[in-house]
Each structure stands twice: as structure tokens, then as C-alpha cells.
């Protein structure tokens, strides 16, 4: 027991020393400073902001600048909107009469131009639909060219699924939303 009495304080001392060292090590070694925030975002697109990047089309589409100074008339051809099957950019026979009407309107006034707006229902991913709407507009442009309209008078534009006419989530809404709208463009008076 005497021996034990001697061992105990020694052991305790060793334990305390080690534990103390351990504890010191367990205290955080060095403080990590965290930088504050990400800095502000400046959002000005001031008058000096570059909006350039315009280059001649070069490809099959007309130069986008050739549509400047045109005034859109959404009502003129609103009755001739054409519709598409699900996930398709093929123009159905049922839509050909409307395309004929659009072609006639353009041919009757050579000063006008046309924007074809392609749209989709919500059953596709966003970027897929943006490309699908584009293909629908391009299909109508091609069809109008076959009907004798100069494709240089036509620009195409896809809204993907961002501009539904019916916000519903059923086939009746979807079938209305899969469409090309035709927007007649008049030259600015005096231009």
C-alpha cells in the first residue's frame, strides 16, 4: 500500500502533465480569419456600357440590324398563329392555310417584314425548349420562303416556354402554347 501511495501521486503528476500538454494541443492552433463577403456587385449598364458585338449575319439569316426601325403590329396576323404537336417542329397540313394567309399579307405590302415567335409547352427543360421554339420559328420561315416570301424579310425568335398563352398544366393549355405567333413589322412612318 505504501508503494501504491508513492505510485499514485507520480502517476497523477504524469497524467496531469500529459493531459495539460494534450489540452494545449487541443486548443485551436491558430485562428483562421474569414474574409468578409464577396465584394459588391456593380450592376450599371451605363450609357458608356458596350452594347456592341454586332456583326453581319453572314449565314442564312438576314442581318439583325435590318429589322431596326420597324414597328411591330401584333394584331395584324394574330388570327394566323400556327400550332404544333408535342415536341415537334413539323408544320402540320392543318396549319398551311394560316401560313398562306401570312404569306399573302407579306406579299401584298413589300415594305413590311415579319417576326416569327416560336413557343413551347412546359414539358421540356428550359434550354431544350428555347432551341425547340427556335426550330418551330425556323420551320415556318422555311415554309414561307417556299410560298415565295423573301426570307431576308423574316426574323425568328424563340421564347421557349416563357410566354404561354394559357398558364394551365394540362393538354388543352399545352396544345395552345406549342405555337408560332406572327408579328407584322411596319416601317416607321417617315423612315
Amino acid at each position, binding site marked *: 500500500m505504501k508503494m501504491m501511495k508513492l505510485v499514485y501521486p507520480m502517476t497523477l503528476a504524469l497524467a496531469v502533465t500529459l493531459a495539460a500538454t494534450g489540452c494545449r494541443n487541443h486548443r485551436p492552433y491558430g485562428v483562421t480569419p474569414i474574409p468578409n463577403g464577396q465584394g459588391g456587385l*456593380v450592376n450599371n449598364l451605363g450609357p458608356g456600357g458596350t*452594347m456592341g*458585338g454586332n456583326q453581319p449575319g453572314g449565314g442564312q439569316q438576314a442581318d439583325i440590324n435590318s429589322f431596326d426601325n420597324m414597328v411591330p403590329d401584333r394584331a395584324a396576323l394574330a388570327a394566323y398563329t400556327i400550332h404544333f404537336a408535342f415536341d415537334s417542329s413539323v408544320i402540320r397540313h392543318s396549319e398551311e392555310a394560316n401560313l398562306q394567309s401570312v404569306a399573302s399579307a407579306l406579299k401584298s405590302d413589300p415594305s413590311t417584314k415579319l417576326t416569327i415567335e416560336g413557343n413551347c409547352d412546359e414539358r421540356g427543360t428550359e*434550354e431544350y425548349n428555347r432551341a425547340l421554339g427556335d426550330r418551330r420559328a425556323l420551320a415556318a420561315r422555311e415554309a414561307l420562303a417556299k410560298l415565295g416570301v423573301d426570307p431576308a424579310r423574316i426574323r*425568328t*425568335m424563340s421564347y421557349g416556354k416563357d410566354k404561354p398563352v394559357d398558364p394551365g398544366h394540362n393538354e388543352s393549355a399545352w396544345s395552345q402554347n406549342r405555337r408560332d405567333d406572327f408579328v407584322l413589322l411596319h416601317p416607321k412612318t417617315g423612315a
Partner: protein
Amino acid sequence: MKNCITICLSLVFIVLAAALCRGQSDQGEIQITRPVSELGNTKPVPVSIEGFGPEVTEILKFDLYVQGFTFVAPDAAQYQISGSSAGDVVGRVVDRFAKTTILSRSYNGASVRRQAHAFTDDMVLAITGKKGIAQTRIAFKVEASSGNGEIYVADFDGHNAQAVTHDGVIVSAPSWVPGRSALYYNSYKLGNPDIFYHNLSTGERHVIAHYSGSNISPAASPDGSRVAMIMSRSGSPNVWVANADGANPRKLTSTSEDSSPCWSPDGGWICFATKMRERRMLAKVPAGGGEVQALHTPGAPNPTEPDWSPDGKWIAFTLQAGEFDICVMPADGSAPPVILVRGEDPSWSPNSRTLIYARRTGGRYILSLLDVYTKQVKDIRQISGSDSEPAWAK
């Protein structure tokens, strides 16, 4: 007898103290190989969290959950996380099996939220040997019911969100320039779907593609010197590559129905969704031009929205088949895709482990995080409206 017990306890204490001291210098990395079979099937790592205030506890749990950890009592945990957050965050991690302290650190400055994120990143590095994601950022679009929207940036968990645009027009598809505080995105500000480059530090932005038809789906190359995009100026939507400022655009594909280009991390390839031989598929084309090669996705027809992981090993994509599912497959095609969760438009974290993606609920999109190994999912903090098209800053 009492003395004997005390001695025994002291000895245990010595052994423990010695073990803990040894642990200080023993921060070895755990390298785990990850075969395809582990996608969605990996058991989360059990950890316990004690001592922090409610806000910090919540942040730590969120950050760890989406990186493959689960929360249990201390005596069931593989790693015991403890500390305090009165004032600044102080934390330590003990490996209960190895009986070593693998991390002990305190933080100051910024906010307690940022300190907690920094502590998570240190923990993930100490435990897995991989860089964590808790201090990374995302960009996304927020759409109103009108269809118009704005581009936002935020912390990866949706906090500290800030609008980048204030145009009130249709916007889409933000894409970070790797290593820079800069985005490409699509905006209809000029009355046409055009591609903008926006320097977030200076606020300067430039239109880099404004041609008739679509100029959409921009993707910056890994070195930031080029941008891939979809343009239809030649009469159909195809993959184009231009210099970072839009100069020198070259048409790379003549396939039909192209969409959603992304880059391989070595900058050598552009992967995209297309249609070949009447079948929807993913494909890749050399970024400098060349032959388009199909990437087969057996069991996952109608794939779209590919995103190549920064480590080069995986391609995540959306499976469109009535519903939308997030899939991951080896980039080398060595195994078929694994379907993970409902959702669309995945974007990889910088460490190639977690995906951010959009999912539909109640007629709108919300953003969620997915740990591809454990399939653990958490919604991030949302902005009102529909939040979609996430892009993780690399």
C-alpha cells in the same frame, strides 16, 4: 481499492492523452475509390455535433448533409464534432475509431455563417482529403410569372443572394467563367435572345453574340478563353465556339436539334444534346472542330442538359421522359447512366461530388443540392418566384 481505481483511471487518461497527442500529427487523407456502383448507394458517414448554437448547428448540418454525412449520437458517430459558437466559431473533430483529434481550429472575422462554412470545409478536407464546397458560389435565374426574370448569384446554399441584372426581361442560362467573378448569360434586353458577358467585379457587360435567331446557352471554356453556345444564324440551332469576347465565331456542328453545350475540363471537347439517326442523344465534338461522336446513354433515352464534372470522370444530365430525372454516367462511357433523383439541369460542384439542380414543385422551379454518392438531397434557400438554371462557380 479506491486508490486502485484512481490509478487505473489515471492510466486510461494517460493512454488517451497520448493517443490524442499522436493524433495531432496524424491527419492522413482517406482516399476512397469511387466505382459507378457507389453512385446513389454509398452509406453516409455518421457524425455527431455538439456544443454549437442553433444557427451554427443548422449551417454545419446543412453543409455536411449535402456532402454525404449523417447525424447520430456521439457514441454512434465515426467523427465527433464539438465546439462552441458564442462569439466566434471554435470547433474540433475527433475520430472516435482512431481515437484521435483530426481537427481543432477557431475562426474569426466576417460572419458566424462564414466561419461555420469555413469550419465545414476544414472538416471535409480533414475527413475525406477533398476540398469542401461550403464557401463556393452559384448563379441561377429567378423568373416571375410574367416570364421575365433576373440573374442572381448566391452562396451555394442560397444565402446572400444578390441580383446581377435589373432589366425586367427574359433571361436564362447563366454560366460562370472558371476562376473569375464573371458570367455569361442569355438576355432578351435588346429584343432578341443574345449572349452577354458580365464582369461582376466592375459591373461592365458586353453583348458578345447578337445575331438573327437564337444566341443562347453559353458555356465558358475551362480556361475562359472561349465560349461555346447555341446560335441559329445559319438557319438551324447548332453549336458554335467563339473567342471569349464573341469574336471569331465558328460553327462546330451541323447536327439537328442541338442544345445545351458544356466543356470537358481539359477544354478538348464540347458535349451537347442532339439528334442523330432520329434518336435523341448526347454527343461530343472536338472544341477545335471535327467529327461529332455519339455518347450512348443506355436506359436513359432522350438525354439533355449535360454537365461534365471538373475531375473529368462524370457527365451528369437530364433524362426527359415525361418526368425529368438527374442522371450521372462515366464520361468514358464505361458504364450505363445511373438515374438518381427527379430534377433537371444539373451543375457540378467544384469537387465533383455534389450537384445543384432544379426541380418542379407547385408550378415553379426550386433549387436543390444532391450528393451523388449517398443521394442525400436538400433544398437551398429560395428567392420568391421560380428559381432555375443553376450554375456552380468553379
